[in-house]
């Protein structure tokens, strides 16, 4: 009885003093805490605002050189077309992005996704080896080839998220609202 009182009192005290920290202490204590440096190296996600983008800059002209130096040209072809790997330049007019070939993340509303994909996934077999300047310049080169930015535009952490992508405002805005155990679309019976 006494010990039960003690436990109750401790719990009360704990919740008064510790608040949420008490409620959220780890249950299993398995695993380790990653270091800040590990997290910095690992975190390649780029938000639409570009907050995780690293410092650096790149131009269209530099991008054209990197495209050759890093052998992008070997798989994707000269000027990003005609290689074994996917075309990087849309052959169709940019008037209607929905009718264009699905090249790059050209249809994406954020230019950061082009940067992100090159950074995480290219070049094949050497992913993650491109330096930020090289990724900025390749992004600039490919966006220029697809008539998204002018030849003299410099891309960096500030300017990249502001690039106006051809999709404009005409698309279903993610995220869709998510509700557990609810039909996919209200009023849609199927």
């Amino acid at each position, binding site marked *: 009885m006494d010990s039960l009182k003690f436990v109750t009192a401790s719990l009360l005290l704990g919740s008064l003093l510790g608040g949420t920290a008490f409620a*959220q*202490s*780890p*249950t*299993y204590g*398995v*695993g*380790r*805490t*990653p270091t800040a440096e*590990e*997290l910095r190296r*690992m*975190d*390649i*996600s*780029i*938000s*639409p605002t570009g907050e995780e983008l690293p410092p650096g800059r790149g131009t269209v002209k530099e991008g054209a050189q990197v495209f050759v130096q890093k052998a992008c040209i070997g798989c994707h072809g000269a000027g990003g077309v005609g290689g*074994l*790997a996917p075309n990087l330049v849309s052959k169709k007019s940019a008037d209607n992005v*929905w009718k264009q070939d*699905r090249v790059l*993340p050209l*249809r*994406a*509303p*954020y230019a950061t*996704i082009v940067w*992100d*994909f090159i950074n*995480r*996934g290219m070049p*094949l*077999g050497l*992913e993650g080896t491109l330096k930020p300047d090289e990724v900025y310049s390749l992004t600039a080169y490919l966006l220029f080839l697809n008539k998204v930015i002018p030849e003299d535009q410099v891309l960096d952490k500030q300017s990249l998220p502001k690039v106006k992508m051809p*999709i404009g405002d*005409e*698309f*279903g*805005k*993610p*995220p*869709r*609202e*998510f509700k*557990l*155990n*609810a*039909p*996919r*679309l209200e009023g*849609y*019976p*199927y």
Partner: protein
Amino acid sequence: MDSKQKSRRELLKTGAALAGGITFGAVGKANAQGDLPPTPTSENASPMIHGSKELIEYGQRSKYVTSVRVQHPIGGRPSPDVFGKVFHVASPLQDSVGVITPSSLHYIATTRGSFMPDIDPKQHTLTIHGEVDRPLTLTMDDIKRFPSVTRLHFIECAGNRHTPKQKTVQDTHGMTSCSEWTGVLLSTLLKECGLKSSAKWFVAEGAEEVKGASSIPIAKGMDDCIIAYGQNGEPVRPQHGFPLRIMVPGFEGIYHTKYLRRIKVTKEFYMNYNEFGHLTRTDKVLALGESIGPKSVITYPSGTQRLPGPGFYEISGLAWSGGGAVKTVEVSTDGGKKWNRAEFKNTPQRMAHVRFAYQWKWDGTETVIMSRTTDDIGQRQALREEIAEWWKVPIERDYRVPGLDNSVMPWKIAKDGSVTNGLA
């Protein structure tokens, strides 16, 4: 009875071998030449499958079972491509029985055609960070120490669409499969890290060369997502995410990140390359592109199969829904005039295939058979005509159902018993 028969047969075989005068020496000679000794057979016995170290260690299906996966869609991007990458590969549903898809026949899809990483599980870790009180890095051994769950779940690719051109149910519906998955609930791990109140989304990222990543609502993560290391009683296979993948029950396949290495809990929605690929023109269509609607298909009899003649058949198929558990399945054998309640061969579970059947006597006349299902949150599978009517668009032969295609699939049965695509 069975074991008695078996031992009797073995005795007969031994006797036959002795009578035939086969000696150990002769057997040895035959092996040295690379030929296996003739198997003693009686009129009733089949040739023997000779035991080998390999077969004893790891079993193999009969050489008479030849069911295989195929590239999807037919005429689409090849798998493997010139770089050895795999894009979309469909499961042979026409040969399926029960609800478990063998792991070696489970459909495959990759992030825009990525290659399969050959991951050493001893080197693999999962890190959870972002909007949490305590970031956590877990080895595979760590993950297996947490309380586990084992659940049946389907995965279906958003590209699982039926069109008039396709011939078999593998072409029309082969981009869905169902396995028993074992792992730790993501909610267990998120609670261990302590979710901040700012946590609204998370990005699940893989370790393959393109580091495929998807954004998932945190409410879904806390509900039923599984960090899975087991599939059908063994470690998840490389084609399906070895050593670790996330199961996001009922969501389109692309959300089920394979080779899972990182979960970043975020305040806002991150659009990854995967989400860009699934952009739509309107909010309404977008709403149909996350959770999978109620869907069913008849797998027997189905396209390119043939009924040998009039008489009894058990029509059999699969039903599933991303909304919950399947509630009912109905089968029509007269082109949709009359719908008959089908029976379940297993207990329907949330976001899992259920095997249904309907017993039917075919009278030998030309007809169309099809199935439709409802789920336990009230969604129902509709005919393409009904869907077009809801969207107020004219129905055409090539009508594309908005969102993932969960419309009814008709199979046409001709007088000679041949089965063809009812959309054609």
